[in-house]
């Protein structure tokens, strides 16, 4: 089975809805260890994404994701704008021109997005950032495919891994971003960026499950 650009569109739209729904929750997490604007910023960004992505709805997955990235870069601000913007720009570049996406291509796009985030933000694993959710998710997705799982199963496993990674940020001391100024006082709080990243991967898994997948070409 392969994924389709319609599922990618559904993913972005679904995640925008979740961000709007969870705006106060994300902002509350950020208020505890950051500057209390993560939900507000992400929601402003994804509202802009919804406007920009509608006219390119029928385009390939690369165009959809790059449009999403550009809209985020131009509207979010803070650290979230460049980081999420880079994630979608890189993932989009990896799927350039593709409307049918193989299992490997989709997981490869997530990996490219993660690599972009790491390069831009220079965060390491366990710095208490979004990388702590994305890294195990990408690893688990690859592992699952290697073990013969379907794409849908692999992405569900990735979302589970992201959730575990997100929860594992609670006991960590923040080493990057504004939370790092708190030192030990950042311990005991769940990282807001890891949380929004988990929600993003859960949305992808749900989009794959919700829409019919493309039958693998047998020609």
């Amino acid at each position, binding site marked *: 089975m392969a994924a389709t650009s319609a599922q990618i569109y559904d993913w972005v739209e679904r995640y925008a809805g979740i961000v709007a729904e969870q705006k106060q929750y994300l902002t509350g997490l950020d208020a505890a260890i950051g500057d209390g*604007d993560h939900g507000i910023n992400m929601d402003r960004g994804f509202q802009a994404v919804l406007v920009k992505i509608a006219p390119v709805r029928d385009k390939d997955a690369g165009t959809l994701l790059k449009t999403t990235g550009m809209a985020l870069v131009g509207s979010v601000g803070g*650290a979230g704008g*460049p980081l999420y913007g880079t994630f979608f720009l890189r993932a989009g570049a990896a799927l350039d021109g593709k409307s049918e996406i193989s299992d490997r291509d989709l997981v490869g796009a997530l990996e490219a997005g993660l690599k972009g985030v790491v390069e831009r933000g220079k965060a390491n694993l366990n710095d208490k950032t979004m990388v702590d959710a994305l890294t195990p998710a990408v690893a688990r997705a690859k592992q699952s495919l290697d073990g013969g799982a379907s794409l849908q199963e692999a992405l569900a496993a990735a979302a589970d891994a992201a959730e575990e990674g997100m929860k594992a940020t609670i006991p960590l001391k923040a080493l990057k971003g504004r939370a790092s*100024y708190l030192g030990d006082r950042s311990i005991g709080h769940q990282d807001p960026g890891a949380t929004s990243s988990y929600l993003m991967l859960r949305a992808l898994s749900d989009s794959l499950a919700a829409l019919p997948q493309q039958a693998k070409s047998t020609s």
Partner: protein
Amino acid sequence: MAEAAVTTRLKKLINTPETEVKDAMAGMAAAHSDLIRVEYDPNVIIRKDAPRKGKVGLVSGGGSGHEPMHGGFVGLGMLDAACPGAVFTSPTPDQMARATAAVDGGAGVLHIVKNYTGDILNFEMAAELARGEGAKVNAVVTNDDVAVQDSLYTAGRRGVGVTVLLEKIVGGAAEAGADLDKVTELAKRVNANGRSMGMALTSCIVPAAGKVTFEIADDEMELGIGIHGEPGRERTKLKSADEIAEILTMAVVNDIPYKSGDEVLAFVNGMGGTPLIELYVVYNAVHRYLTGRGIKVTRSLVGPYITSLEMAGCSVTILKLDAETTKFWDAPVHTPALRWKA
């Protein structure tokens, strides 16, 4: 509780949180049409006569809520453009890319960036975009706040009061025709020779959040506060202005450290909610502390220049001067917020 009711009511002179930044930009354009022009989407405040041929362009930016920084410093002898983000949120790369293009007179552009993760990342992306368009762009990062440790384990010291002094001094050099390398070197030197520390008596309310950023009791203060209400070194019982001024100045002086015989600029900044009379009470103690240690205060600045919305409190910045930085501090400036000799 009556107290809780007060802290959650949004009692501000705004129309809506969403329109606040643009409404204020329009107000600035209307009030200072001789000095600046503004553009929207992306939001940029530009010196009226930019680009100036052969002059290095100076671009800064950051979250809104710190006025007059940075838009109030656009004009002759200071910035060529400022990019206001949402309140307490860094601006986006398209803003800085547009500002860079608008002020590039062929001699290159310097980005002046305060050390916050969001600002750094957005300015980096903007510089990549601008260089892609053929612009010559350098960047300097200010990180003068001694309240937070500069270490591998944090995002590094925050950029605060020195940013204002740097924009003035480097602006003077750029106006006098210094090239991009010279302007960049001077900016780094100013940052390296300045340190700051702030404190808060009260919190502030980010309009989009609608409630106080942090709770603080009537008899407490936060020492080492950041300009977004980030916590600092410690929460302590309130002390007298003299004692507070001494704590802040000592922390700053001991950091570089400044020595007897040094010539310095002493800057007492208001956080937005503290009246000038109190800032002068603080300045008096700062000046006395410095001169008591043989440090010569040859220049000074007192007033709200890098604020944190309606937060009450102050910060102290000390900048070690040399002949060149003194000369460019004294050079003519004409902006909405700073004006002398022009």
